[in-house]
């Protein structure tokens, strides 16, 4: 049984990596613009399908991931700049904005279906060799994704802490008006944040498609829930919290799937999210500002 648990943890780390990837992007968007962007799910799907398009034309899966990431990054910036930001400026309430993102997600989802059809798609055999170490049993793809996530997270960390841009981003996220009065072009910083987080979104979509045997247009929305759970768990708006949250949600899900019904790995994510929202919406590592933002 211990072997089973350790294996499950290994899978959990792999799933958790993808969840963390998506959760960080989602968290950054919330932290920067105070918006729960539900369209994120469908944008991941778009990324996955874009990856499929490229792979079917012979492009390497990892290159496809990069390209899809960049495209979704651009789409995300546009989405925020020309739909969400104007609505916020008009004084639209937060609830209505969520409805807009849910609706946009639905529209995008069905546009994808309209073009690509509702049947399941696959990237084909991507797993590669299987490795066994420290009791974990992982495929080459899964290892690659874990490595990729680590690299991206490290990159994000360095960006946020060592660069002027990163400092500007943190300043804008914590107090927009103050940042403006310091001469920071907050609109530009905002756009940059959405570009980067959108890229993570697209990358997460492709990563999901790589790790699942087959997928359809519900891919994004389904995985969005564990990602939101991870983001909330870590304290929404906190990218570092989202990384840890991703691991927790991934491992918890895999353990549940391994020892109980495989269907229940989804339910675990739901349960985590609901419990967090009801008991501690600021997350495990949430700051006071997150709580203030979240309390009505």
């Amino acid at each position, binding site marked *: 049984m211990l072997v089973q648990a350790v294996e499950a943890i290994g899978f959990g780390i792999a799933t958790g990596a993808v969840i963390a990837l998506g959760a960080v992007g989602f968290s950054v968007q919330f932290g920067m613009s105070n918006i729960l962007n539900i369209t994120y799910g469908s944008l991941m799907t778009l990324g996955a399908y874009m990856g499929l398009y490229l792979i079917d034309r012979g492009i390497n899966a990892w290159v496809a991931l990069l390209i899809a990431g960049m495209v979704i990054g651009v789409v995300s910036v546009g989405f925020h700049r020309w739909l969400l930001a104007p609505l916020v400026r008009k004084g*639209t309430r937060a609830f209505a904005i969520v409805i807009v993102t849910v609706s946009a997600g639905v529209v995008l989802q069905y546009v994808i279906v309209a073009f690509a059809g509702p049947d399941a798609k696959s990237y084909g055999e991507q797993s590669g060799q299987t490795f066994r170490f420290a009791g974990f049993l992982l495929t080459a793809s899964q290892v690659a994704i874990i490595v990729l996530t680590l690299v991206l997270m490290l990159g994000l960390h360095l960006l946020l802490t060592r660069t002027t841009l990163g400092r500007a981003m943190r300043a804008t996220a914590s107090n927009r008006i103050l940042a403006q009065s310091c001469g920071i072009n907050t609109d530009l910083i905002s756009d940059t944040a959405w570009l980067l987080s959108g890229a993570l979104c697209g990358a997460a979509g492709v990563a999901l498609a790589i790790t699942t045997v087959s997928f359809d247009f519900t891919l994004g929305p389904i995985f969005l829930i564990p990602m939101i759970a991870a983001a909330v768990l870590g304290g929404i708006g906190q990218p570092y919290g989202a990384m840890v949250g991703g691991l927790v949600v991934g491992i918890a899900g895999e353990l549940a799937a391994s020892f109980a019904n495989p269907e229940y790995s989804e339910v675990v994510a*739901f349960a985590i999210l609901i419990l967090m929202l009801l008991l501690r919406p600021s997350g495990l590592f949430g700051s006071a500002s997150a709580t203030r933002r979240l*309390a009505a």
Partner: protein
Amino acid sequence: MEYYVVVLLVYLGTDLLAAWGLNLEFGVSGIANLAFIVTIAAGAYAYAICTLGPPAAMGNFQQYVGGFTLPFPVAVAAGTLTGAVVGVLIGITGLKRLRPDYQAVAMLVVSLMAATIVSADTGFLNGNAGLGLIPAPFSDQDPEFQRWAYVAIVAVCCIAGYLVLRRFTDGPIGRTLRAMRDDEYAAAAIGKDIVAMRLMVQAVGGAFGGLSGALLVAFIGGWSPGAWNYIETLALLTAVIVGGMGNNRGVTIGTFLIAILILQGVQFLPQSINTIRIGLREDLGWIVLGVLTIVFIWTRPQGVVAEKRPRYGGSP
């Protein structure tokens, strides 16, 4: 053709009941219940397990709890009541004072969770396959009579429902609910028990949902998780937003627009569209719906028919 009119009328009637319930919760009282579809599903399932016979008697090809072989009126009442209870349960999860958009997402998750649990547990309500062969009333009569009798039943339920609805949306309680919608704290400061009112509204709204679900499932004969995924709440929400939040006339018009014109209207698009891909017409319907919601929130959030300004005894 005549059958199609019947279908349209029944769908319109059940959609109206559901939209009125959601409007009471969201438009009038400001409760962002994106899990509303679960009350409809609860009503439908309750009706099903009340009217079906025990699983064994049907050859055990579907597994579910219940199976009481009750008559139609009792089952519909059971469906309505179940909707109310589920409404209150959902309401309890929503009591934690969260930011409205956060709350909306939480409700969405509740809706998804309910669908997942029902799908996963095959013994409860037959899981993903859902329930079928659900009995309808008058099944021993002439089919044409059965159809139109059912339209009459739905119509009666709608009229009765509307009269009950008005009791809640008008008068002093309507005023208090709208105050709660505007500012919960201020409402509490003037002595209103917010918790009690929210739960009451979600019970009544849930009852409307349950009734809607029960009437719908008796007509369709089958019900599965696919019929009640979270997108359905969005359709109702669009009807409420487009029609005009908070006022019954607007919501009625909105429901007509969304349920009939759009979701059914796509059936009238040229068949050729469906040869490109099967089901493309329905997909287009959803796309139009989503775009419409966004357009209305952008340009006219008060909806097609704005809330009527109440006047009291003429100007001085």
